[in-house]
């Protein structure tokens, strides 16, 4: 039974080790630079949300608006997601 214990915990250690290696080895700088370059170029850092036509795309600026079915308008997802 001790063998089973060592096998299970060696497996867990291996998983933790692999995650640590991936975490340390990931190149964060180039990803951050790309984002910063676009933000610097456009002076906009708004998330590229894949939204329907009546949902706001640029946060804190646009507001949800459905002129066709105002009474049928779904609960605004962005209102859920972001604290106003």
């Amino acid at each position, binding site marked *: 039974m001790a063998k089973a214990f060592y096998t299970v915990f060696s497996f867990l250690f291996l998983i933790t080790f692999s995650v640590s290696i*991936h975490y340390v080895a990931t190149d964060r700088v180039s990803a951050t630079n790309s984002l910063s370059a676009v933000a610097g170029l456009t002076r906009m850092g708004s998330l590229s949300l*894949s939204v329907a036509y009546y*949902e706001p*795309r640029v946060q804190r600026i646009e507001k949800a608006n459905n002129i066709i079915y105002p009474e049928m308008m779904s609960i605004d997802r962005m209102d859920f997601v972001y604290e106003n």
Partner: protein
Amino acid sequence: MRTSPFFHFLMLGFFKERKKHIGVIAISLVILFLLGSALFISSSIRYSLNQTLAWEPDFVVQRTQGGQKVNAPTAWIDDLLEVHGISKVTPRVYGRYFFKAKENSFLIVGVDFMDEQSNKALRMMMDETDLKQFLKGDNMLVGEGVSTHLKTHFYPNGYTFLTPKGVFKKVNLFKVLPKKSNLISNDMIIVPIELAREILGMGEDEVSDIALNVPNDDEWDNVADKISAFYYDIHVTTKEDIKKAYENLYNYKGGVFLILFLIVIVTFVLILYQRYSMVYSSERRHIGLLRALGWSIRDVLKLKFFETMMIVVIAFVLGVALAYLYVFVLGAPLLREIFLGGANLPNSVILVPVLDFGILSSIFLIYAIPFISAVLIPTWKIAVTDPKEAML
């Protein structure tokens, strides 16, 4: 440890009852995986957005009408430049362009490429870009989502925009923005500012809003007051507002995530109840037997503590590791749509691995302490009773 009878007995009990433990580990693993995935995605997005904060303007000045944002006059720029302490006043021109009415849309952003910051950022983004060649004709830089969408609709080299005046405007696709910037640029089309005005149907004396910087942080409040006093229909957004919004992004205050956390907590309470009642029913005899054989209360509690700790550690490590793999290696398919939406262009973002050890340790403690308590409390209650009664 290998020769310890206690350890041997613990292992014997644990692996003999493995079917029972696997069930608990599996349910805990699913909960921890879901919770871990949601927290990993949100912390990664928050981290990436915070990195872009340095490039964002200190203030954004907008014109509002009936609560809606409308285009601001360029004359405001001159008024703003007169305020002491303000630097880098940049007009922003942007808006959504619908590929088909009410279907897919792109975000058109007009950029003044002669502006120092824009020029520097452009060169940082793609060294080989020849700015002169780019400015020579009507060219655009597009995000990966736009590029894919145009290609699938047979526009591999450019697109002919229909302006609000009914005029067709052909724009060449000059370059696709790097995939690593998809988080903010997936549906973006960057064009020279004049071209953006033409496509969006804006007048030469109009801008979407005005961005400006105030280098001295101490003057921010003062400058915000001064700007607000200029016009009655002015709205000022500060970088602090944006920072606050990023901090609160996808946290427990958001409705969807509040629901997620509530579901997780309710499921977890059910697991705890199951453990609690299991100890009372099926393990009652076992604990009584151990006590009758001369085990002290302390030994019984120690045995149950280590047994539960093993379950907790296995479930936690596997749950968190699977969440990490799912989010940062596989890119969180399906779940990322909850965060970024899926109604417009598909967005395959690269999520930068971010491990918030504060959150991880909180999850562990929130999971481990009630779980261990749900086993140890009934165990102690049974262990302190007479073994004869316990075995009945």
